[in-house]
Structures are given as C-alpha cells and as structure tokens.
C-alpha cells in the first residue's frame, strides 16, 4: 500500500484516481433544477404581477423564459463539469480528493486524523442509490470533508475501510 503513495501527495497520477458514480450528474441536475424552480417561480410572480401594469421594465414572459433558460443551462452544464473534475482515491494512509471547476482544490486527509465518519443519503440520492461519505477531522476548515456522488455501497465500503483503519490504528 505504501509504495503507491507518490512523492507529491497533493498531485497524484491520473490513472490511480477514481471518478464519482456517473449518476451523480443526474442528482446534481435535479438539485440545481429544484433551486432553479424557485427562481422561475419568482420570475413567474413578477411576470404575473406586471401583466396588467401600464408600463413594466420587461415584456411579459421574458423574465420567466430567461430564468428557465438559465436554470436549464446551469443544470445541464455545471453537473457535467463537477463530475468531470471530481476525483478521489483511497491511498495507503490517506484519502485524496480533488475537485472544483474554477478553483481546483486538492485535499489530503491523513487517515489517522479522522475523527469519525458519516454516510448520508438524501431523498434524491436515494432514487439513484447514491450516498455521500462525510469525513470529520479536527481541523477548522475541514471539520467535515464531503465526498459526494458515490454508489451507496461504495460509500459504505469506503466508510468501513476507513473505520477499520482507524480502529486498527488505535488498538
């Protein structure tokens, strides 16, 4: 296990890294569209309110159409980009994560710094049988490091593996 730890822990060989589960894109799309629905709803109210007004800043329907298009575009593009740049790998003594579209962040969580572990699944993720692994450490900024978009079994498997490591380490 030790031998595949590269000399630069925060930049790993591409081949050793794993992608998230492809369905993660769908989950993210649904979540963004749900958020977008709020925006569309607000725009709809604005349009409805200005329907009978004498003069309004925008012609009727423009706000709604624009926000619908925006939500659709974001919902299509962002999850793909997230998915494209998300990588993780469980190496000998650490969990490595890399993600981000604009700001690309690499994280190394040494396994013995893990305080405890969570696996969580929300109602949308449950439909696709996905889950998140949440790794809690004592660091301020990294009190919960989230690894989303895993197959639920994979999340549980990772948790059990990490858990084993911690226990083995401390006994």
């Amino acid at each position, binding site marked *: 296990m*030790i031998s595949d730890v590269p000399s630069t822990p925060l930049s790993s060989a591409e081949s050793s890294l794993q992608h998230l589960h492809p369905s993660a894109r769908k989950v993210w799309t649904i979540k963004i569209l749900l958020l977008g629905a709020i925006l569309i709803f607000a725009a709809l109210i604005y349009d409805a309110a200005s329907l009978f007004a004498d003069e309004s800043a925008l012609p009727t329907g423009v706000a709604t159409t624009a926000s619908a298009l925006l939500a659709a575009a974001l919902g299509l593009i962002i999850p793909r980009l997230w998915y494209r740049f998300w990588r993780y790998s469980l190496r000998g003594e650490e969990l490595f994560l890399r993600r981000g579209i604009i700001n690309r962040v690499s994280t190394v969580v040494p396994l013995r710094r893990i305080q405890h572990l969570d696996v969580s699944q929300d109602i949308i993720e449950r439909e696709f049988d996905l889950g998140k692994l949440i790794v809690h450490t004592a660091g301020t900024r990294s009190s919960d490091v989230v690894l989303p978009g895993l197959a639920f079994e994979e999340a549980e498997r990772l948790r059990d593996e990490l858990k084993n490591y911690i226990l083995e380490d401390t006994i």
Partner: protein
Amino acid sequence: MVSLPGFAILLIPVLRSPSSESYLNLGIAVLYGAVTLPLLYLQYHRFRYWITPNELVIHSGVFTRRRRNIPVERIQNIEMERKLLPRLLGTASVKVFTAGSAAAEGVLEYVSVAEANRIREVIRSFQRQKAQDAQWTSDGAQPSAQVLERSGRPVPDHERDALAEVTDDDHHAGPPLISMTLDRVLLSGMFRFSLLYIAIIFSFLQFIEPDPELLAEMLTRGQLGALTQTVADSPWLAGFMAAAAAALLSWVSGILVNLNKYYGFRLWLETDKLHKRHGLLTLAEATIPLKKVQALICRSNPVMSRFGWWIMELQTMGLNVREHGFQIAAPFSQEEEIGDLSTRILPVSWPSRLSKVSRLTIRRMTIRYGLVLAALTLAVSAFWRPALYGFALFPLVPLWAWLNYHHHGYSLTDDALVIRKGVIRRMIWYIPIRKMHVFYSAQSIFQRRLRLKTVYVDTAGASSINFPMIVDLPSEVADTLTGRLYDRFRDLIQTTAPGSFGAANTARDTGQRELSFALPVPADQRRSSQATPSRPTGPPN
C-alpha cells in the same frame, strides 16, 4: 426542526379570544399539526442508537437518513444537560463531544436520567477497556491514562484535592516567563485604540435622558453660544476638530482599557501547563495545558513592528468550548523576547529567513485589487458622484500588491511550517507539523494561467477568517513543498514516542493515543526534509 412550541404560539390567539378572525390561526395550527405531528412521530421512530465496545452508533433522520458512527476512543467529553422542560418530564439530553467541532457531535435527546447515566457509564467503561487493551499491547501506559482522564472520567477526590492545592498555592508558581511592568503596560496601550468611550457616552446620555429641545437651547444661549457660532461658521474646521477629539478619546480609552486588561500580566510555567494572571478591576486567570497548543501566532501592525513590538498568541484546542481559541501569551514584547519565550514554551526553532512566493503574485493581486476598486468606485458613484475620485487611487494598487508580496513569506523547517502574511495586520504563524490535520493545495482559474498554486494546512482551532495560507507559489515549488511537508508529517507522526515532544503532542490532544504505528515506512520511502539552519532568535522579519 419540528417544534411543538411553535404549535402552541399559533394556538395562543384562539385560546385567548375565540373570534372568527382567530379561526384562521386555528386552521393554520391544524395544518401545521397535521404536518409536524406525524413528522415528530417519524423522527422518533427513525431515531436509533446503540453502543458497541468500539463505537457509538446513531441512526436518525426522516428524509435525509444519517448514520453516524463515533469511535469510542475519539469521544472526548460526555455532557448531560437538563433544561427546564426535560426536567419536568424527567429526561435528560446526552451530548457527546469529539475534538472535531465545538458543537456536540452526537446528541441523544430525551433519554431518561437513568439511561443517560447508563450511557455515560457504558461509554466510559468501554473507553477504559480500550485503554487497558492499549496498555497491554503497547508500552505507552501514560497516554492511555491521559485519554481516560480527558474523556471525562470523574477525578477521584484525593486527586482533585491535589489539583486544587496546585492551583491555589501561589508559592509553587515558577519564575515568570513574562511579567509586565506598569510602564510596559502603559506603553502597549499607546498602540491600541478603543471605541469604548462611545459606549460610555451613550450609556451616560441614556442615564440622564436629556431633553433635546432643552439641550439645543442650552447650546445656543449659554456660555457655549460662541462655540456653536464658530462651528456653524467653519464646518471644515469643526469636522477636523471633532475627528481629532474622537481620535484622542479613543487613544486615551485604549490606554485605559489596555491597563485594565493587562495590569500586572504574569505568565509562568508549571511542568506542562502555562498559567497566566492579569487585570486591574477584574482579575483574569487562565491555564493552558501545553499539549493543547496547536500553533503559535505572532501579531503586529506597521507602527508596532516599526519599534519591534509583537503580540504572541497561542492557538488552542480543548475539549471544553471555553478552552478553544486564542490565548494571549505575550501582550507586548520585543522580537527577541518572543523568540526566547516561544522556545521556552515549545521546542520551537525559528527559521533564520523566509522564502518568498512567486513575483507573479504582484501582477495577479494588482488585477484583483484593481477590479475590486473599480467595481466599488462605480457602485458608490452611482449614488454619490464624487466617489469617482476613487479612480485616483489606481496608482496605489500596484504598490499595495507589491507590499502584500513583500510581507508574505514562508519556511518549512524540520518541525514546523512558518508563514508570514499581511501588511496592516501582520501575522506570523508557527505551525508544528505534528499538529497538522488536513493538507490542501488549490489553483484557481487565474492561477492556472500563471502556473501558481496556493498551499494551506488545516489545524485544530484555527481561525477561519485569518487563515494561514501560502498564496501564489510556483506550481512546481508548491508540489515539492507539499511533498516534503507530507513526508515529514508521516515521519513525525509515525515515529513519535509518547513524551518525546512533551510540550506539543498532537495525537494526545485530539484524543488519539500514541502508539507504535501499524504500517512502518521503509527507509527508502522517507525523504528527510531539508533542515533549515535555525537559531532561537525572534521571529524572522
């Protein structure tokens, strides 16, 4: 999440005056109840917890199902809380704290008091069991005792008495590491400002409650008439005088506040704990166990550092929320004193010089600050035309970027990462490698074009606003730095024997025990990081 009191509040108007209008409220209440009551039941139904010899498991959540496993040995503290309502119901809530966050990690609400006690006992007995096992398997007997005590084992009476004796008895206090004389306290106050006087003026006004009309009359008619006339004649002079008066007042109150706070400041060391005592009107005392110190932070500002004055803080992390945060170890000291003090507290070796980040940071920061300034100026000028003069500040932007570059530096020594940052608020962090938790390297879209990276490490109890970061290292330098840092981290963490770094023992303070590590690293995998020549002088400047 779901609250019954909310339900009650909705019902109050109905109960008080049953009129047609309040039936609306009743309707809302019924609706609310129809949603929340089943949800409450589901919540109750979904909530499960059990304790195995290894961990505390909590399953909860209706929509988002949460399964939380907290390893027994990571539990730092178990608190039992009984608020009014639970007390009436004969229940208690058990809160389980780990080092991860200030808030409780596991909360078991509304368990019976007997059950709460039982949970606490069971967890503790498992912890004791673990500690004993550890004692058998490793020779680190002392740390396991530590873990037990820190996890909230009731201290036996004779031990508690002994502790009390130590803390009460002043004569045992060692020679002070720092004791501030009165003139030092007054001098340090001269560098501080306080707005306390505003609060005092306002509370005074509130106390006497002056009649505005009467006050206006007094100002215009009495002896002050001449003064108000002058003010009315030359508003610029008046404004200037007012600003000068405000500055003087805040300066004086700064000195007084500082005097009250740091009068008679004394810091001394007793075996492995730092004690400090200071204050004029309220005497503040604090004890800082050295093993809880996560990092050293030196602060200054351009004026103070011009005369070589620095403040030193200790970043601490405790199982108790009150022990979190930043403890001032030296309120006002010269560089050499800080250097001397730090080496007496922790095995600190300051690097003799710091490396610089890439010069490209000047370009990046110029663009960034320039855009911020432009946006700000345009936004304000939309409401207030003269704000357009803000564009006159543009020549200062590159200077500011250069100053930021000039005051930013870092160094990786054998034991620590040292980072300096800030122009106005100057900071130097000394972060022991043993205290590091998570490693980061980040590259924004703009940094990618310039081949730069930002490197930072997370520590327990670090401030999230003023966070130590090395911004804009050349990519390759960043990669080698993180490589060296992480290698060193693995070396130190794996080979640390209990007590070898007595003052700063990472593993213990986050509830981990020091143990012979399961996976020894082959010698050829280790790359000893370059030792930087070090001397126990002041922080590099």
